[in-house]
């Protein structure tokens, strides 16, 4: 360590960056101290100097003790697995006191967004030396998308409540806020049974067409094991069946940025798309998502829900010239357009369309008209959410 580095470290230790605005009581106390000082100096009453000195050094002691409280604290977040716009969530905060002997009293922790604290805070009354305590604050974010928490603000009014000393800790973390989940109209869900499939993985059924074999994974239904092939290969293999059409659905979200469609309408449509996907995945369906220029292949399970929600969390109005992808091969299609009521098209209706539709590709995917007017655009790049 060079002398310069050591000097810089010592200076940083001696003059840490802190905020210490007085509290309301602190302002009164400071004003009283000032007045008493003037009175003592003017009156020449020596004992008043003693009282004045006490008040001055109470302020000084307040600064020292609060600094001791704030030093050597380590704060970490316990982020919830999913956060939806407009829905309250609990953000876990863990605070560790790494001092060897001194406890920390009356510490508040606030998350910072762009350097400004959130309106919610976590309070730790006493944090003994070498201990970690966890608590959480309840909060909600109204907008979907990326939100960056830039750090923490640790503050304390200990010991006398005269000043609120705080220090900021840089600890950036990005939160992905999923679209708000709204109530899906019953009319839209008509035709989608509330429970589907058998076994633990509801989106798979043994009643469908045989697709192939794969290795057995923990959690698979033992009844799906293909014993003959397993005996032949020496490893357990399970049979995969293709579900019938009723177990797959595709949410088509027309994300075209059309003049006249407000941002609120767009956001409402995003929320509806996410909510429909959420409900149907809960009901055991394999859900795919199609949008302008991108799509997600139908899958089931919570991972697929996360995939769809992440996609919708970041979706922005696309150029109307981009095609609306349809990743689904079969099953119902739910079309959601900003500013319009969502509509559902079940398989029976689509069979007629399929015979008529010449644009369907081999995999069953087809490009829908690029805009509500029905003008089909060129096929866009396929995109699969990570």
């Amino acid at each position, binding site marked *: 360590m060079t002398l310069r580095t050591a000097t810089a470290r010592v200076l940083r230790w001696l003059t840490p960056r802190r905020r210490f605005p007085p509290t309301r009581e602190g302002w009164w106390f400071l004003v009283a101290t000032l007045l008493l000082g003037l009175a003592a100096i003017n009156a*020449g009453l020596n004992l008043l100097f003693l009282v004045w000195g006490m008040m001055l050094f109470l302020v000084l002691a307040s600064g020292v003790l609060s600094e001791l409280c704030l030093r050597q604290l380590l704060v970490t977040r316990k982020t919830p697995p999913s956060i939806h716009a407009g829905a309250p969530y609990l953000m876990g905060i863990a605070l560790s006191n790494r001092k060897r002997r001194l406890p920390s009293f009356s510490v508040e922790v606030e998350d910072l967004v762009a350097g400004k604290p959130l309106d919610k805070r976590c*309070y730790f009354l006493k944090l003994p030396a070498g201990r970690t305590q966890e608590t959480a604050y309840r909060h909600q974010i109204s907008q979907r998308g990326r939100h960056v928490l830039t750090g923490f603000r640790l503050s304390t009014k200990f010991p006398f409540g005269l000043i609120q000393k705080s220090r900021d800790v840089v600890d950036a973390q990005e939160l992905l806020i999923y679209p708000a989940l709204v109530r899906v109209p019953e009319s839209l869900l008509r035709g989608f049974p509330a429970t589907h499939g058998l076994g633990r993985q509801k989106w798979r059924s043994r009643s469908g067409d045989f697709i192939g074999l794969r290795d057995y994974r923990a959690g698979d239904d033992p009844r799906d094991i293909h014993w003959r092939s397993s005996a032949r290969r020496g490893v357990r293999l399970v049979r995969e069946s293709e579900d019938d059409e009723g177990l797959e659905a595709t949410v088509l979200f027309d994300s075209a940025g059309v003049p006249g469609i407000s941002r609120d309408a767009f956001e409402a449509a995003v929320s509806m798309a996410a909510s429909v996907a959420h409900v149907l995945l809960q009901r055991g369906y394999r859900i795919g998502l199609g949008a302008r220029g991108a799509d997600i292949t139908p899958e089931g399970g919570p991972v697929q829900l996360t995939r769809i929600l992440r996609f919708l969390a970041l979706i922005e109005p696309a150029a109307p010239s981009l095609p609306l992808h349809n990743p689904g091969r079969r099953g119902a299609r739910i079309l959601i357009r900003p500013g319009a009521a969502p509509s559902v098209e079940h398989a029976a209706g689509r069979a007629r369309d399929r015979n008529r539709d010449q644009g369907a590709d081999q995999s069953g995917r087809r490009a829908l008209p690029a805009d509500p007017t029905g003008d089909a655009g060129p096929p866009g790049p396929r995109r699969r959410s990570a």
Partner: protein
Amino acid sequence: MRFQATHKLMSYLLVVSALGTLASSEALPALPALGFLIAGTVSWFGDVGSPTARVVDRLALPLRAAVVVVFLLSAWQVWRRLPDPDLTPVLNLVMFLLAYKLFHRRANRDFLHIYILSFLIVLAAAAMAQSFLFAFAFALYVVLATWTLILFHLRREMEENYLVKHSTQAPSQKVGVNRILNSRRVVGGSFLASTGLVALAVFGGSVVTFALVPRIGAGFVLGSPRATRNLIGFSDEVALGQYGLLSTENQSVALRATVPAIGGLPSDRRDREIEHLYWRGTVYDSYDNGHWVRSRRHELRTHLEQRGTRYLVREPRFESAQSPHSGHEGLGADNPHAAGTVGVGPLPPNLSPPDGKDTPAVGRGPHAILRQEIDVVGLSVPVAFALDHPVGFELPATKIGTLTELRLSPRWSGEVALRIAPLDFATSDNDEIHTYAGTHYIAYSRDAMSMVRAGAGIPLRDLAPEVVAPFLALPPSLSPRVIELARRITAGRTNAPAKLLAIIDWLRTTHEYTTNLQRNVAIRDPLEDFLFEQKAGHCEYFASATAILLRASGVPSRYVNGFQGGEWNEIGHYIAVRENRAHSWAEAYLGELGWMRVDATPPTRSLFRMGRLRQLFDSIDFFWSRWVVGYDLGRQIELARSLGHRLGGEPVDREPHPWKFPWARSLVAVVVVTGLWAIARRLRRRRVGHRGMSGGALRGGGAPVARLYDKALRQLARRGLVRGRSETPREFAARVAAGGLAGSEVLDQLTELYVGARFGRRPVPDQRLRELARRLAELGRANAPAEARTG
């Protein structure tokens, strides 16, 4: 102790300490204070929900009405005494409000009011306190205030925040406020000890502030000086029989004087010399029927000649032109050591011993001058006391920004008065009774006996008749037999000294000293009664008889009140003059010999002397008066100069200081305290065992692995991975591994070695341990936490 109970106890102790500061000022009204203490004691049981609290709640309206009534009453009492307000009603009001709040402890706001009211009491005490007991009460107040404010803050935070109980075994849950207020785990002995140290630091800081803040002004809001009791005998009129009797049993210290020439004497000689010191105060020239008064004639006015901060005292109508005051010449020179300060300066040249050693003789001889630094302690009389015979005074320089100052004003017959006056105050004879406690000044005196030398005064025949007449005047009511007695005593004596000696001899032969006065009311004049009937009395009678008999025999005389002697304080190195040292004597004008002190009072039994303990208390009080109450810019300069000399290693060109910081003792105390602390720490370690984060000591070959395990735990703790108290080493290692921490396998291996050594007493191979230590160090360097996270 439970948090709530601790907070309550501290709050009450805070109030008591605040009252203690007020008690040290002697301004605490006794009856209201007693009532307050009783009410405060009862209020202790007035917690929310208690029967007392229910009664208070039912009486809320009448109590509030009473508060208003007491407020109005206090305001009226203060207003009635304007422009010299009495603060007692205000103190009564504050105590009443405080008692009410102690009964009505419902919310945090009530506690806050209690603290504010107790602080107001401390402020009042600081403005009025004179006793050093204030320091003890104030130190206690500072400690208790620190504790109380911390507890109050925590309590408020508890009540205003959502509290969660954290546990590693169970989910977190909401904690009720009452539950945590009754918890014993929030604050404990160690908390109070550590915050107590902070409080002591605060007190030390207040002392430093007190010492360092420049005293640049005084008097803007001083208001009227407080009136205190007057000491009988120093007012405009003295009635025989009151002064000596009332002061006999009074042991209050009136003056403290530092006389450098006395301090250097051997103890036996010093005590003898002190007993013969006369502290001259008031002088009276007119007698009638047992009363001495001042005639206030212009020609008798004392002449004060100001030279800088010094005043030369003269009676020019009696001074010979051929014999100027040689001592005055010396006093007129500038003295850099005394300018602007009342510190003890160097000895005048004529008091310095020839060999320069510190064995000065008490000033005797025509040119000897005694320098005295006088602190007024308990006098409320505007008299500048000084050793007989005062020839000069020196006052502290007027402070910058001050509106009032201490002044001297001339009176009559060589008497000088003290004045606390605004800067534009013109000299007047207004004898307002102010408190002069804390006043200090320097006086220069010549031994009164040394004045008896040829050429010091003007011959009696050359004095102007209007000047000498008042000192020869006999009251018309004086009995002729007194005049006849004087002629009989001085028969055959032709000159004044011979008459003087004859009168003293007659009085001491025929009269006795007593304080048990008898009085024949049939004789109107108590002096006549003393001379012819009682033939016993105290100093006032002897002095009055001397003066009147001298006048009756044609010798000018006057009557003087003051003090005689004093007590040497071995600790503070000063002379304490108590009120029971009050004394009266006469002064006779002996023509060319000038004015001479005449004390015909027979020697009396020795007065009460202070024991060692009382000397200690008195010296503390002296220190308090001089260095706290009387601390001013001059003292600051003196202190800074003294410190500078000490730091510079130069000898201090000073007289023996009345108080020195006990460096050696302080060093010993620090060593002893440190040693005790080390022993206590060692004993505690032995008792509980040295328990690191590993949970206990290992004996034999297991100790190194325990230390290494401790090191690993500390390393992980710096990264936020702290082992819970209920977590086993293996559980902790599993948790670290599950967190995906790089190098967690090192902890796994170390944990197995540690567990095996601790619980299975398995030996740990040194090579294996070294290998793990090396890997641990590498991981520590690689995983150093980000600077930004730690602040």
